[in-house]
């Protein structure tokens, strides 16, 4: 048994499925003993636990220490479904539920909460023999998601660069059986993500909240105290250099939502949204224009993926969304969305942040314009915008269906600071450029590269490349972006 850093065993892919590390949680000691014996007979490595809270502690303590969790539904200290959600959110491990009760509604609830499987007691050994399939399935889905980006050459090139620079811990390794780094909030989201990943080969510049990262995050939150928490504090505590406050803020938002949902609290916390003390100043200067121009090109290029993008952005949708955004914002007044073109031509209106709520770059699923966006939008209604884009890029590109919408604009800083906000890249349909404003910030500095978790990432080189490609289709000067004031 290979020992990991902490002295806990690490997976040995060569003998898979033997050696699968299973955590069994059940309040019934008879079942614990029986399951332990059965799993041992399957050559799995078993840890048993009688309490859900204990199990969560074990899981948190031993990061990557388990491959799969089997849990009973009825437990005295915590509902099995809650545990299921926690595990899915924090650790993203496959969870199998079991119960004496096989009622359809219960099973459905289990599946809705994200269970991989639902076993009925009494459990036979043959049912346990095959639980490794859930681990395997998850693994290949993750690999497939990342590999879908590899279709494009320009992405490949970038990927090489990014891989060199990115932290090893965040790369997907083929043989590695560590749990996926995509946070899974909902079963549906996961499904959508997979669906989307097949279509798009867009480089996403996003933060992938790995288990490790989320652990740090949760620790920081707990340290600060849930009520006083703010993204800046969390960011400081987390001590992750490449992480920006927006990432933390958006993740915090999701985390809060999740907690709220758990507590069945209908009142969304609107008190402690992320704060942005250092929103980039809005000066209309030439340098800004210049930088805008540069960024625009870069951004434009970065968003372009010539192949297989789905164009689905009717104008109306965007506007509708925009309006919704506007309407939903409480503290912010929506202002102009300055387009790249406008910026290029040196519009001297001071930029104000349009206060669109960003989508969490964390969210691993791609939402279609219509439904998903609105949904997310509403969820984020109460939060003040979380932009801290130092160098925002404007693109006048349409928002295709599968992207994370970054509805807020921020004019770029005159000072191009090394911290880029990490945003979902909006994949661009080269067809649909014109009337759309893309509110997006795109990072295109090399600093971003280490943000790339093995996913295609934008960087200067790539931007430039794409920019060149892009030019042949649309002469730069003719890019017209509406100015919405």
């Amino acid at each position: 048994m290979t020992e990991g850093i902490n002295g806990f065993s690490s997976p040995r892919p060569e003998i898979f499925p033997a050696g699968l590390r299973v955590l069994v949680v059940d309040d019934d000691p008879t079942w614990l003993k029986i399951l332990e014996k059965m799993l041992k007979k399957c050559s799995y490595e078993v840890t048993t636990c009688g309490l859900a809270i204990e199990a969560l502690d074990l899981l948190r303590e031993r990061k990557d220490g388990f491959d799969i969790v089997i849990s009973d539904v009825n437990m005295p200290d915590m509902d099995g479904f809650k545990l299921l959600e926690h595990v899915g959110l924090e650790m993203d491990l496959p969870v199998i539920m079991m119960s004496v009760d096989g009622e359809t509604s219960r099973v459905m609830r289990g599946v809705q909460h994200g269970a991989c499987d639902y076993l009925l007691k009494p459990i036979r050994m043959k049912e346990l023999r095959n639980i490794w399939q859930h681990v395997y399935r998850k693994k290949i889905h993750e690999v497939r998601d990342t590999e879908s980006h590899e279709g494009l050459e320009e992405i490949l090139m970038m990927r090489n660069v990014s891989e060199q620079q990115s932290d090893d811990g965040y790369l997907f390794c083929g043989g590695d059986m560590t749990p996926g780094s995509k946070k899974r909030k909902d079963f549906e989201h996961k499904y959508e993500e997979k669906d989307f990943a097949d279509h798009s080969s867009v480089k996403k510049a996003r933060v992938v909240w790995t288990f490790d990262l989320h652990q740090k995050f949760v620790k920081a939150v707990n340290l600060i105290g849930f009520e006083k928490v703010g993204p800046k504090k969390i960011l400081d505590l987390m001590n992750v250099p490449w992480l920006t406050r927006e990432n933390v803020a958006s993740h915090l938002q999701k985390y809060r939502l999740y907690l709220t949902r758990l507590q069945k609290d209908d009142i969304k916390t609107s008190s402690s949204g992320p704060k942005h003390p250092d929103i980039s100043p809005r000066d209309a200067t030439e340098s800004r224009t210049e930088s805008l121009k540069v960024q625009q090109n870069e951004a434009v290029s970065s968003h372009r993926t010539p192949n297989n993008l789905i164009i689905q952005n009717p104008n109306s949708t965007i506007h509708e969304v925009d309006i919704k955004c506007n309407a939903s914002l409480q503290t912010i007044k929506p202002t102009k969305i300055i387009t790249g073109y406008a910026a290029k031509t040196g519009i001297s209106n001071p930029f104000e942040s349009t206060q669109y709520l960003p989508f969490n770059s964390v969210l691993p699923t791609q939402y279609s314009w219509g439904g998903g966006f609105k949904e997310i939008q509403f969820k984020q209604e109460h939060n003040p915008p979380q932009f801290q884009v130092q160098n925002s890029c404007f693109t006048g590109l349409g928002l295709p269906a599968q992207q994370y919408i970054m509805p807020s604009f921020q004019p770029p800083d005159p000072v191009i600071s090394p911290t880029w906000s990490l945003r979902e890249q909006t994949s661009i349909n080269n067809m649909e450029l014109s009337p759309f404003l893309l509110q997006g910030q795109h990072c295109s500095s090399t600093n971003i590269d280490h943000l790339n978790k093995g996913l295609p990432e934008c960087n200067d080189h790539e931007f430039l490349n794409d920019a060149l490609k892009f030019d042949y289709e649309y002469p730069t000067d003719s890019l017209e972006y509406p100015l919405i004031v």
Partner: protein
Amino acid sequence: MNPLTHLSSYVHKKTPKLSEVNLRFLNSKAKTGVPLWLLGFGAVRLRTDMNRLLSLLFHQGVLDEQFLQLQQLQDQTSPNFVSEVVTIYFHESEKQLRNLRNILLDREMWDYVKLGIHLNQLMGSSSSIGAKRVRNICAAFRTAVEQNNRSACMRALEVLEHEYCYLKNKLHELFQIEQQRVLGDAVRYPGVVHQQ
């Protein structure tokens, strides 16, 4: 037919007095004065007794296939697996039965939710060792709880306790035979660890 009365009819069936047979045999001695069971006949006899008891229990529906699974899990590394599990089961279910009894003792208000919880736990445990009859009575009990039928609940509890006692006795018997057999084997072949 009321399932509870149907089940309780099982309880009153006569069972062969296996233990008496065993005892008589165990006490019988060969001409040399050595107890017969030491001469190896005992092992065979004991095993047939055990099998007979088991098949009887299966026939009566006291145990089901899960018990066989438990037996299959027993091996060299855990030679007493079945008896360990069953001991844990006895411990747990007696706790649950006490809880149930306590709730039902209250003349006024019954906490039906708690009743349901304890019943579920008992059901789960019983399914783990294959105690089919106990589990079925728990299910009937649960239905009575859902219907808020107090008298049915009281009856169900009685039957449940009765069934449980029967199961416990039979399982004890089974383990006794098993122990004797193992002991006999050990004496016959001292120093050798036998699988069952």
